[in-house]
């Protein structure tokens, strides 16, 4: 699975990418194409690299950092050109320019990083020979044409052109043939470097991405995660950057949440508007950010690596596709159950399953789901409004409505009993009084009958 496959995930990872200050379009494409990491080793290595860039961003003086960022703006996607070179095609002037431009850029960036003691962090292949081939006069500037010094005859023809503009068309024809010969020769000389050029291009993209991630960590107050050794995932003061930003623009503050989960399923209950869905969104976001090597929005984070991440939420998109909300949801959860049989490490985050059906069957479905998944090797975090038998699930509850304000913290409770605060909350929203009072009367009547 590549980053581009999860970019539209309702957890809001797109926001993180939109806020990433990448210098080049190529780095963005490369990042979107990068696969989700599922090996502990590769994740650890990627954070080691990011840590070096984080230190660099923190310590480098502003001018040096800006120079490096400005250089990276010149990184272009020349994959087609590289492919042509690999396929023994003759490159045209524009393609030769692209190769030269990249080679000079790679050398410049390499030197800048070397000066900062960062050489070994991201390996950039040396392309000095490529530059020598495309810069016969040793000008060291990233411009290109078929230079006079490639061919003495060409030089003579061009001088004639300047002296006799009236013969230009004829002379150009002759010159074109000579130029084409030079291009063929240059392409042959460059062919052995095709792989190194391609590696250099990717190395520059990696540098761009790591710098952007490091800067984002500082801007958003993200943290480096610790790889979990015991399969437990735990966050202290976890937050959702996009929701935090949205609240901030309305002059409100995001209340960070502590949460930990491991082998046993975790059930989150709580009043409406208690932020249960935001918790699941944030957990999904953090897990994805972790496996794509980004900073984590929390004060501290210990995360277990997963093979698959399933976020099941009332999916608007499926509804737009014509599936009923119930059908869409059932299919999503079905995928979780199927995957759980395949001996994969799973993280499943399920928001209020079966919420759109009748409460009797809904509660049965949720209880059964909990029982079915409880025995499997997976991490399950689920929210619900139904009063259900939690089995051996851990139960967390949003503290809820106290003194007119919502406390979004999660507290551990012994049973899965759900709070009955819907009417109070609706009242605090200023919902029509006749409606709420009538509901209250009905509730009291039914309680009395019991």
């Amino acid at each position, binding site marked *: 699975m590549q980053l581009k496959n999860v970019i539209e995930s309702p957890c809001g990872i797109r926001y993180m990418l939109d806020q990433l200050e990448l210098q080049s379009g190529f780095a963005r494409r490369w990042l979107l194409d990068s696969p989700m990491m599922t090996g502990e080793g590769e994740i650890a290595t990627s954070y080691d690299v990011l840590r070096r860039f984080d230190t660099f961003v923190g310590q480098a003086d502003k001018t040096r950092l800006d120079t490096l960022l400005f250089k990276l703006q010149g990184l272009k996607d020349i994959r087609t050109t590289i492919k042509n070179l690999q396929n023994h095609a003759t490159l*045209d002037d524009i393609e030769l320019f692209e190769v030269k*431009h990249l080679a000079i850029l790679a050398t410049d960036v390499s030197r800048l990083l070397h000066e900062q003691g960062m050489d070994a962090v991201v390996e950039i292949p040396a392309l000095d020979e490529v530059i020598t081939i495309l810069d016969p006069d040793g000008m060291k500037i990233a411009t290109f*044409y078929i230079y006079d010094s490639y061919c003495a005859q060409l030089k003579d023809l061009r001088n004639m052109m300047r002296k006799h503009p009236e013969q230009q068309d004829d002379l150009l024809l002759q*010159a074109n043939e000579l130029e084409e010969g030079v291009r063929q020769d240059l392409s042959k000389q460059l062919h052995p470097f095709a792989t190194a050029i391609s590696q250099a291009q990717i190395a520059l993209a990696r540098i761009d991405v790591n710098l952007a991630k490091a800067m984002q960590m500082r801007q958003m107050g993200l943290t480096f995660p610790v790889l979990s050794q015991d399969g437990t995932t735990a966050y202290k003061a976890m937050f959702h950057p996009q929701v935090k930003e949205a609240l901030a623009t309305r002059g409100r503050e995001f209340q960070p949440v502590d949460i930990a989960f491991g082998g046993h399923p975790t059930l989150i209950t709580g009043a409406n508007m208690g932020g249960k869905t935001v918790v699941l969104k944030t957990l999904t976001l953090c897990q994805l950010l972790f496996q794509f090597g980004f900073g984590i929005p929390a004060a501290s984070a210990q995360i277990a690596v997963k093979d698959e991440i399933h976020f099941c939420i009332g999916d608007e998109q499926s509804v737009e596709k014509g599936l009923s909300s119930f059908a869409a949801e059932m299919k999503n959860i079905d995928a979780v159950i199927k995957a759980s049989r395949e001996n994969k490490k799973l993280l499943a985050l399920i928001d209020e399953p079966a919420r759109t059906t009748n409460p009797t069957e809904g509660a049965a479905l949720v209880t059964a789901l909990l029982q079915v998944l409880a025995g499997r090797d997976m991490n399950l975090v689920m929210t619900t409004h139904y009063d259900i038998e939690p089995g051996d699930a851990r139960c967390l509850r949003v503290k809820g409505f106290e003194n007119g304000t919502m406390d979004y913290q999660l507290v551990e409770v012994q049973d899965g009993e759900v709070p009955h605060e819907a009417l109070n909350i609706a009242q605090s929203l200023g919902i029509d009084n006749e409606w709420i009072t009538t509901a209250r009367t009905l509730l009291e009547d039914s309680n009395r009958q019991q």
Partner: protein
Amino acid sequence: MRFQGVPFINDILRYDSLSIVGLEKNTGKTECLKYVLDRLPVQTKRIAVTSIGIDGETVDQVTRTQKPEIVLREGMYFGTSEAHYRQRRLVSELIDVSDENTSLGRVVTAKALTGGKILLSGPSSASGLRRWMQEMHRFDIDLVVIDGALSRMSSASPAVSQSMILATGAAYSANIATLVSKTAHVVDLINLDLTSQGNIARLMPLEKGLWFIDKDGALNNLDSMTSLSRDIRFDGMENCETLYVAGALVDGFLEKVRKNKSLKQVELVVRDFTKIFVTPQQFRLFIKAGGRIRVLQKSKLIAVTVNPTSPSGYVLDSDILCAKLSEAIGLPVYDLLKNKPCN
């Protein structure tokens, strides 16, 4: 009016960008571009040439005539598409391959190492053109010359280029009186005065909608989004001093402003002349009734050129045309073909 020397070349050099636009096909825009490029001091100034709005074929789809090649001089910079770069008929050094895409590939920039011919096809939108011009700062370009689109003024917008030359001629109208009055209308719009510095600073950031500033200096938004809205109302605007139209200004709106008694003294402000789409009649009525129109940005109209020959072969009297037009617009008018120096 006889043409002596090359007076407007020095005017051009006072600005960092020049856009050449034609009011109609065959009004001599390309001749004008050639004329300018032949005379700019390429030894002392870094000159870059590009175009807007040529999308595709080398044969003009409307007139079936061959699209003109531009003759560049050694040392000039140019921006054109990859496809046209490969067809260049000169020796040139590539200095940049941009991310601006056109139907003919990316826009590339090069320096001519010999004189010769090229086909010009630059960025395909005004915003793309602006980005390309920004890039040119890296190469210390002194002047960017833009071969503007026909009958589309966007490339001449002061947001893109500081100065402009307008090409008109018999192709626009084959009757001298009509041609003069239609051209004078465009010139009137280009030459509209700037509003106050205070207004410019306040209104420039507003990119859409209708706004007014009242006598107390308060800035208000009118709910109707554009001046195109049919049921526009000017309620509660008795105190309005300045009415700003961020988008297009059209006939119906101008008429409503003119007929509204409470807006008699109002100063109507538009972004720049390219946003005005009113007929000469409505414009004149508005001005006659004492209306004022001002702009936030304006480009310097350096000269007007005429081509007295229409595509059908009809030829207007060049001297009379130049004289009448010059009198109507108060600017020198040149017939570049007729007055070509006889060397």
